[in-house]
């Protein structure tokens, strides 16, 4: 007979919950070395013997007080869905800090199992946690695990199954002082008059939350007949004072038990601290950050060049083959111009994207990116953003969609909205093909520097916009910075490659889906109506382009570029695919960059303006969808579109005028 068990993985941020989740379920969810990687709960399955186990990976939380959106997700799941067992994943290298959450989980009265994760690293540091004592004092089984090497996971599952069948309750986890206990008893008595309420929530837990002035708990009793009596009890006390006293008590219990469970949990200055002193130094911090980013871009271009050249050669060969001997001619054109021309233009950039993603993953896994957020905080604060919004901005270099989702860790709603609105200006991987193509063609000797400049331009526009929003539509001051700095870890090749693949494979899938589709539509529009010369002014694409041309002309863009930009709304890589189709790179086997260089309308200035325009105009379709979802407002979504277009137009216009003036040509 099959048995179903539902377990939830809970724990502090950055303790390896996602690593354990992936190892158990065999999926490859993103794992990061900064707090807040999992912003939504995710579920997966594993089976062992007759048991089918559903595993829910919850966002990392320091407590269950529901302070920010991700904490609410974790807490509501445990309270409302009542999983059979909660696995509390604990960072064994950092044992003491995790225990506060343990005390709160115990009060929730769900069966608990502790996974002492990263035990290998803890043991290397000389930390020994006595699991027998854990069981004795906390009444919770603790398992030694190393998520990254799948150690201890079988034992973890066995223990989970035992616990789910034994279903022990951890009531009275912490005895508070007498006065608090009396209040708790009073409240519990009141709450018990509403059977429906206590069927949903453990009464002692609810009483404790109410005493701590938890608004979310107050909402839970809002409709209960016991509400009035409960409020009468609460009116007698000062919740702020009670809360402080209760927190003190939890820490008292923790510090009393800690030496018995872990004799070696001592605090010392270590090498991490020394590295921090250099990396976050007031003079060195920002130069180090800029140097690292610039180095990453330079390295990307240098290392990707031979791979790109090989792919490009293969594509031209394929296009030439399809274009010459194929019957009927339209099929040859579809294959050569449409598919190979459009897709090939994008495939060429895969080496660049993967290498850049790999380098960003290395920086992230090492623990550096969280420091970068701290280093940037002072600068960010000055322009009206919290330092925390720096992380979504950095993720934006990969893709704006997960970046906008990552803003959930920002508590203040205004801070969050501003961070969402400026995120599309962070240059995502999809824009890289456009830069690589144009910078490679028009600035062959300085391609790395030009691309670096575009990233800087994106950051500058994002910062300028944040400043503008603070001065006008969203006034206020950002919340002060408070963030955990993950320990430095030597990034392993395997994890960095997995990260790179997680993000990069999305790009390949997109290339096969929406971008292929986009390229085919462009090909169709460029070939129809029948009999028209491919990609000429008489085709549908040409007609659309000519309608748009008066708008694009002041920026120095002709109709082909106008069409490419229009289709770029679907996904920005489509700009390259469309140019590939419209410039007909397939026919003569020439490359797109040589076709672009041959176009008399294009020169370095126009190319740079075009890159800036692609960087700044409309967020792509997927980014818009997520902006709508995260802001919950069509108004802000529409604002984001109009604002992006306006800024792009102005910036591109300024670049062309300035460029013509300074260089005297296009």
């Amino acid at each position, binding site marked *: 007979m099959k048995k179903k068990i539902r377990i939830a993985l809970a724990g502090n941020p950055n303790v390896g919950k996602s690593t354990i989740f992936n190892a158990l379920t065999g999926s490859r969810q993103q794992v990061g070395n900064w707090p807040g990687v999992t912003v939504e709960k995710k579920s997966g399955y594993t089976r062992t013997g007759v048991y089918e186990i559903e595993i829910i990976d919850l966002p990392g939380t320091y*407590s269950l*007080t529901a302070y920010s959106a991700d904490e609410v997700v974790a807490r509501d799941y445990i309270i409302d869905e009542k999983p059979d067992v909660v696995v509390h994943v604990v960072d064994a290298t950092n044992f003491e*800090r995790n225990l506060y959450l343990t005390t709160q989980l115990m009060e929730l009265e769900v069966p608990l199992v502790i996974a002492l994760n990263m035990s290998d690293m803890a043991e290397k540091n000389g930390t020994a946690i006595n699991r027998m004592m854990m069981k004795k004092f906390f009444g919770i089984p603790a398992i030694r695990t190393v998520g990254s090497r799948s150690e201890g996971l079988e034992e973890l599952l066995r223990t989970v199954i035992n616990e789910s069948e034994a279903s022990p309750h951890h009531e009275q986890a912490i005895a508070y002082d007498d006065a608090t206990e009396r209040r708790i008893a009073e409240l519990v008595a009141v709450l018990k008059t509403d059977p429906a309420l206590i069927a949903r929530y453990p009464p002692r837990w609810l009483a404790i939350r109410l005493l701590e002035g938890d608004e979310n708990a107050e909402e839970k009793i809002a409709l209960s007949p016991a509400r009035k009596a409960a409020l009468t009890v609460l009116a007698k006390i000062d919740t702020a004072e009670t809360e*402080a006293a209760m927190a003190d008590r939890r820490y008292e219990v923790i510090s009393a038990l800690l030496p018995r469970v872990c004799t070696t949990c001592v605090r010392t200055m270590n090498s991490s601290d020394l590295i921090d002193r250099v990396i976050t130094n007031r003079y060195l911090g920002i130069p180090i950050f800029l140097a690292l980013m610039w180095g990453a871009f330079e390295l990307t271009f240098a290392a990707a060049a031979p791979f790109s050249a090989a792919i490009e050669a293969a594509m031209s060969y394929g296009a030439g083959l399809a274009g010459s001997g194929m019957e009927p001619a339209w099929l040859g054109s579809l294959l050569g111009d449409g598919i190979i021309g459009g897709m090939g233009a994008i495939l060429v950039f895969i080496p660049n994207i993967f290498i850049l993603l790999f380098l960003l993953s290395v920086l992230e896994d090492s623990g550096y990116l969280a420091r970068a957020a701290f280093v940037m905080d002072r600068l960010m604060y000055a322009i009206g953003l919290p330092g925390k919004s720096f992380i979504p901005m950095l993720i934006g270099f990969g893709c704006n969609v997960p970046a906008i989702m990552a803003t959930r860790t920002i508590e203040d709603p205004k801070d969050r909205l501003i961070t969402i609105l400026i995120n599309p200006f962070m240059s995502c991987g999809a824009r890289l093909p456009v830069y690589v193509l144009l910078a490679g063609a028009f600035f062959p000797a300085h391609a790395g520097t030009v691309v670096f400049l575009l990233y800087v331009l994106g950051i500058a526009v994002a910062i300028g916009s944040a400043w503008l929003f603070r001065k006008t539509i969203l006034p206020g001051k950002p919340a002060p*910075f408070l963030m955990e700095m993950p320990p430095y870890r030597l990034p392993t090749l395997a994890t960095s490659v997995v990260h790179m693949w997680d993000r990069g494979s999305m790009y390949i899938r997109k290339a096969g889906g929406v971008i292929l589709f986009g390229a085919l539509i462009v090909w169709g529009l460029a070939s129809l109506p029948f009999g028209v010369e491919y990609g000429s002014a008489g085709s549908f694409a040409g007609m659309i382009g000519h309608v748009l041309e008066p708008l694009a002309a002041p920026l120095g863009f002709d109709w082909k570029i106008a069409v490419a930009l229009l289709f770029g709304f679907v996904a920005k890589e489509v700009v390259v695919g469309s140019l590939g189709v419209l410039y007909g790179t397939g026919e003569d086997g020439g490359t797109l960059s040589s076709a672009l260089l041959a176009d008399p309308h294009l020169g370095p200035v126009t190319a740079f303006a075009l890159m800036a325009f692609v960087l700044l105009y409309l967020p792509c379709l997927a980014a818009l969808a997520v902006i709508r979802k995260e802001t919950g407002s069509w108004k802000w979504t529409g604002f984001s579109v109009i604002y992006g277009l306006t800024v792009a137009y102005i910036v591109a216009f300024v670049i062309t005028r300035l460029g013509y003036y300074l260089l005297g040509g296009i």
Partner: protein
Amino acid sequence: METIPLSFLEPGTEATVAGIRAADGMLKRLVAMGIHPSGRLTVVCADRGSLIVSVAGSRYALSKGMAMKILVGRTGVKVQ
């Protein structure tokens, strides 16, 4: 014991938290992270008021605004 805002401490000083003047939500977050009255912390590095502190083996970065809200008493111990 004389209390001063956390942001005035120098790198390497250990201190005991005397009080936190933060709004309810922020207070809860700090307490959950291990920064609570009578808890101990060590300043790892400091730069014009914003700092990184080590608390029970974890490191937290705080901006000056945040560090001004946390009052500490020096324990006089320098950790190396």
